[in-house]
Each structure stands twice: as C-alpha cells, then as structure tokens.
C-alpha cells in the first residue's frame, strides 16, 4: 500500500520535473531566439552570438539591452588595448610616435565614443551609430600609424572593427 503511494508521488514528481525541464527548455529556446534573430541581422553572426551569450543579461534583454552589452564589450576591448599600448612603450620604444597616437585614439574610444553610445542608444540611436562607427575609425587609424608589420595590436584592432560592425548593425535596428 505504502509502496503504491510512494510510487504515485514519485510519478507526480517526475511529471512535474519533466514539465519544468520542458518549460525551461522552451523558454530558453524562445528567449535565445531574440539573440539568435538579432545576430542573424549582423555581419558576423557567430561573433555576435558569442559576445552576447557570454553575458547573462542577454537572455532577458531587448534590442537596446543587447546594444548596451556590445558597447560594454567595446569598452572592455578598448581598455585592454590601452593596456597593451602601455606595455608596448617598454618593449618597442622606437614606436613611441604611433603609440602616442594610438593612446589618444583609444582614449577617445573608451572615454568618448562609449559614453556617447550609451546615452544615445537609449534616446536617439543615430548618434550612437556615429559613435560606434567612430570607434572603428579610431582603431583603424591607430593601426595604420605603425610601419607595416610592426603593430603590436593588430589582432585587437581587427577584433575592435568586427565588434563595431556588429554593434552598429544592432543599433541601426533601433532607427
């Protein structure tokens, strides 16, 4: 008799668990769909996915939220690059001039472009688009200042340009 009750209870628990697992899966797939759907409209789908999914906020974000996550990535990458630039002064002192220019350009990215993008994305997204495009330009110009093959940050520049392209595409969805 007890065994029967226990079995019924176990049965109910299993059922509930199955329900919850199913629900979570459905929700996950459905929510992930926004990220998926958004990233499909950017020039680099896999980069977009990896950037957004690496941030837990993306599962419940709207387009503005997704844009802000990517602007955060731009800021983080810009800050990282500034660190690399600083280190390069010691390891490649003959590159002081282009490093100085890069310092200026990346400070613009991190302090100016990112700030403008954040306030504009919420209210008047075309100004955010301008700031993000500018971030890509600043990065490219910095890179272009090094003699060929001597840039210590080529990989980071390329990454910045790719992230800016993706971010720009998402901001354009807000126009």
């Amino acid at each position, binding site marked *: 008799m007890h065994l029967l009750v226990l*079995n019924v209870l176990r049965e109910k628990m299993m*059922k509930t668990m199955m329900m919850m697992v199913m629900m979570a899966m*459905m*929700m996950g797939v459905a929510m992930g769909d926004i990220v998926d759907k958004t990233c499909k409209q950017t020039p680099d789908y896999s980069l977009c996915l990896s950037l957004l999914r690496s941030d837990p906020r993306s599962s419940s974000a709207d387009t503005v939220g997704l844009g802000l996550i990517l602007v955060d990535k731009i800021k983080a990458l810009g800050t990282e690059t500034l660190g690399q630039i600083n280190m390069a002064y010691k390891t490649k002192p003959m590159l002081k001039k282009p490093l100085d220019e890069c310092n200026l350009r990346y400070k613009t990215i991190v302090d100016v472009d990112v700030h*403008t993008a954040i306030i504009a994305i919420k*209210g008047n997204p075309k100004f955010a688009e301008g700031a993000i495009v500018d971030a890509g330009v600043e990065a490219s110009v910095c890179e272009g200042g090094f003699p060929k093959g001597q840039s210590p940050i080529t990989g980071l520049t390329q990454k910045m340009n790719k992230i800016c392209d993706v971010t720009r595409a998402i901001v354009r969805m807000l126009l």
Partner: protein
Amino acid sequence: MAKSDALLPISAREEDPLLSDGSRSDPNAETHGRRRPVKGLLAVSFGLFFIAFYVALIATHDGSRSNDVKIESDGTATKASRAHLAGVSEKSNDQLWKLSGDRNTVAFSWNNSMLSWQRTAFHFQPEQNWMNDPNGPLFYKGWYHFFYQYNPNAAVWGDIVWGHAVSKDLIHWVHLPLAMVADQWYDANGVWTGSATFLEDGSIVMLYTGSTDKSVQVQNLAYPEDLNDPLLLKWVKFPGNPVLVPPPGILPKDFRDPTTAWKTSAGKWRITIGSKINRTGISLVYDTTDFKTYEKLETLLHKVPNTGMWECVDFYPVSKTLVKGLDTSVNGPDVKHIVKASMDDTRIDHYAIGTYFDSNGTWTPDDPTIDVGISTSLRYDYGKFYASKTFYDQNKGRRILWGWIGESDSESADVQKGWSSLQGIPRTVVLDTKTGKNLVQWPVEEVKSLRLSSKKFDMEVGPGSLVHIDVGSAAQLDIEAEFEIKKESLEKILGDASAAAEAEEFSCQKSGGSTVRGALGPFGFSVLAHESLSEKTPVYFYVAKGKDSKLITFFCTDSSRSSFANDVVKPIYGSSVPVLKGEKLTMRILVDHSIVEAFGQGGRTCITSRVYPTKAIYGAAKLFLFNNAIDATITASFKVWQMNSAFIQPYSEEAVRALSRT
C-alpha cells in the same frame, strides 16, 4: 509485483533501464504501457510549448521593432525597398572610412595649428562644444533669433539644451545665455528640437520635444517670459506640460520635432509631427486652438513606405508665381506645399512638392515616383546637410532655410579642437518658377556685406588646363562664375554618333571624381588647394551626352583628395542640375575654412562639404580654375571676393548694443 508495475507511468519504468546498465528493458512492456500516460504528457508539453511560445512572442516585441521589410507585389514598393537599401549603402559608403592609399609611413596626427584653422569665419557656430539641429528660428522686434541643439559640456552629442543667439542680419551674431535647459521631468533627458509660431496678437509660442526622465518623447509648450524683451532672453515652460504624448500605435521613441503651426480654414491651428509605423515614415497631424489641448486627426499628412523614421518634418507653402516667401498659413490656388523630412536611416533631408487639402489635413505629392524620402527624391542639398528647418521672415518677406552641418572628421579631432558642427549659411527658399519642379535656394543677400576686395576674370580655358587664380588668401571666399562650352566643342560631341551616351551611367558619386576626364568635363574650381595639388577640393560641372543628343549637366564637389588625413570622410557629392535652354552654366561657391558650399544654376542644386586639409591651410590654401575635359574648350567669366569674418561675439550687453546700432 506485476500488477503495480503495470500501473506505474512509463517514465518511471523507463527510468529503470537508464538507471541500470543502460540496456533496454522488455520493449513489449514499454510499448504496451506507453499509450495512456504519454498522451497526458504530450498534452501537457504542447500546452507548455504554446505558453512559452506566446511569452517569447511578447518578449520579442518589447523594445524592438519588426525588421521585416514589407515586400509588396506592386512595383512601387519594390522600388522603394531597393531605394531603401540603396540609401543604406550610400550611408555606409559615407561613414565607412577606408584608409587612404596615400598613407604616410609616419602616423598622421592633428596638431593645433591644423585644427584651429578649421573654425569658420562667417558661419554660425557656438564658441565651443557640440551643436546639432536648428530650433525655433524667428524674427521679432528687429532681431533674428536662432536657437539650436547644444551640449554645454562636451564636443560630442549629449546633455542637450537650447542654445540661443540673435542677429540683425542673419550674419553677425551675438551669443545669448541658454534659452532652455533640461530642468523638468518631461525634458530631463534632452530639450530637443522644436518650432515657433506667431499668434495673431504677435505673441510667440514654442513647441518642442522633450525626452522625459524615462526617455519617452513628448511635446511641450514654452513661451517668452517677457514679450517686451526684444532679446527674448527668458523662456517659461507651460506648467501643464507635456501637451502631447505618443498616441496609441506610436512608439515612445518615434514622436518628435513639432512644426510651426498654420491656420486652417476652420480657424484652428494645425501642426504636424514626424513618426513611423514599422518601416513607413509618416507625419501625424494635430489641431489646437490654444496650443495646450490638441485633437489628433485620423488622417496622416502623408506617409511613404520603407523610408523609416521621419525627423524634423517641415511643411510650408511656396508661391507658384512669385519669387518671395509666404507665411506658413498662406493657402490658395497660386500656392504649392512642400513636405520635407529628415530621414533617420540615411541622414538625408528630402522634400517633395505637392498639394495640401485643408479639409482633411492631407497632402499628396505632384510626382509620387520621387515622394518624400525615396532615395531618388529631391534634396535641399546633396552633401552634408541635415535636420533643416525653414521659417517665414516677415521682416523681408522671405522663407529662410537653416541646416545642420555636422563634422566629417573623427571624434578624437573634435574633442581635441573642442567643438563640433556648423550651421549652413541661411538660404532663401522659393519654388523654381521656371521648372516648377524643384526649389531654388540662395545664400541670404546679407552675406554680401562680408565681401571685401574682389577680382574679376575672363578667360578661355582649353582642354586639360589648370590656372592658378591669384586672389591672395583663399580660405574665405565668395566666388560667382559663369561657364560656357565653346560651340564648336559641343557640336563636335553632339554630332559624333559614335560617342556613347554616358549620362545614363554617370553619377558624381560613382564616376571617379574630378580627375576622370570626359569629352565635356569636368571643369570648375579647385578650392582649398595646395600649390602642389596634393590636397584640393574641386567643385565642377560635368556635362554628359544623354539620349537623343540631349546634354545632361552634373554638378559635383569632390572631396576625395581634400586632405592627406585618413580619419576624415572624403566623399564625392553631387547631382544632375536642370539647365534650361539659353542658360549659361553658373555656380557660386562660399569657401569658409573647413566648409565649402556650392550652388549650381542659381541654387537648383546645392552641395555642402566639410573638408579638413592638412597642408592647404592658411597661406598655403590656393584657388585654381581647371578644365579636365578632353575635347571642350570653355570660357569662364567669374568674380572672386575675399570674405570678412562675421565676428560672432560671446554674450555681453556691449556686444548687443554694438549690433543694435548696425
């Protein structure tokens, strides 16, 4: 026990095979027991699926708009969506800098000498920081007032408030204290663009968009605190603001830039506000008697699919017969109406000419194939020119156009130089009474007061010629020129049946710029040119043979070689320009440091460019006349004036007094 086993749900039984060594239990027992419990489970999971799906649907609609371009089966929609894509790619070309091939081995960096040269001498700009849209321009008690979107804190967009300045002549300005700041919940995130209306008693109301503390776009009413103050220094915000909030069906960030109001035949005031529904740009219409309460019309002033958000809508009458401006409320058989909008997607201002129906507040274009916002529709300006706004100048009976001219350089440079953006030279706007199909713009007459010394030239310039025009300093110039292609050259080309009709293929943007030589062009002026021509900005005509031996004239500005710098945008701008029988080719160019404004055929085609030379600055900036045509000899007759500075003053009572004496 076998009996209880049979009662267990399949899940439990299926657990067992998984829990054990993984081998499957008796398949017969599984299939036999599967039917009843599985049905229930299936029903439950379907229900969950639908719930989750529904939730996902709601979630995806939150904040983001549908990206689906509505591809309709009729031709116009397809044209429009193609045009939309074209508009986007134009924008991309404009904004996606390509590092120039002539890159130096040494990093290029801006120094203060180059940057400080960029400030203009006679264009409106604040002493420092960022500016964008013109706001509420008006003439009152002897003063022209200009308000503008301004960031008091930085050389980039943000913290937007209303700057203010006054002038007697639209040229010599004195800055005034800020007119309105973001001090209310309903404009906490920005005191955005708006327009002024004069009431019958001569008083002024200002309607403007506020971005609320929650970033919702609302319309607010403000008025001068003291109408006896000709400087209108202080403004009062109506305590009952906002007077308009986004109506049902309109998203909270798609509702901005109210226009000047006009009187309806029913005696009410009417305004229009740009917006969008999905990808269709629209203009909403409201009627009011007191500017405090409004009734929204069911009809829209107009809408055009696939044009995106309409910003800074402007709506005004133009005379079909007279070359003068009209008050915004004028209507009648001798009048056409202009609808203009700034396209958020492409940052281009477009307008169309059409007919206004006052009874239901609607407007239809004369030519729907070039409807507002379609990429081929008319523009005030084919260069850098946005968020423009007109006002009726009752002082001189003209309609005047202001336009925001942003920078085309990097934000690093803007931050370094401490400022960003200009206003174009104010222009009069009238309908072209000769063609009836476009507007004509011209710098206000008062610009001439800046003319200092002048030199006159008449010359014949053979194919492949370059002539240095010695005018001394060449960064502040007003040039008026007339060109004619020698008859023999024209006849030769028109008579040559084998000469391809290239006009169909030619565009300023895509045909390679001023160094690409054709039979009948390009010819014009190279401004802000270094003597080595390593930097130059040509403004030119290109005459191309069209179908049926017709000639089509293009007017272009080529900034692709304007600067060595690789962090500035260097597009080639321009468009075809109507040239009527018997007309000579005429152009006017205002050069003012980092801005070049070119007016073709009396203002039928206008091009504003921003240029940032690194070498062709100060004394090294020169002027050249050139003729790159292969076959044509041209005669050029032109006058070049040195332009004085407008000496725009910071705020002081002394400066105001000095101006009022003029």
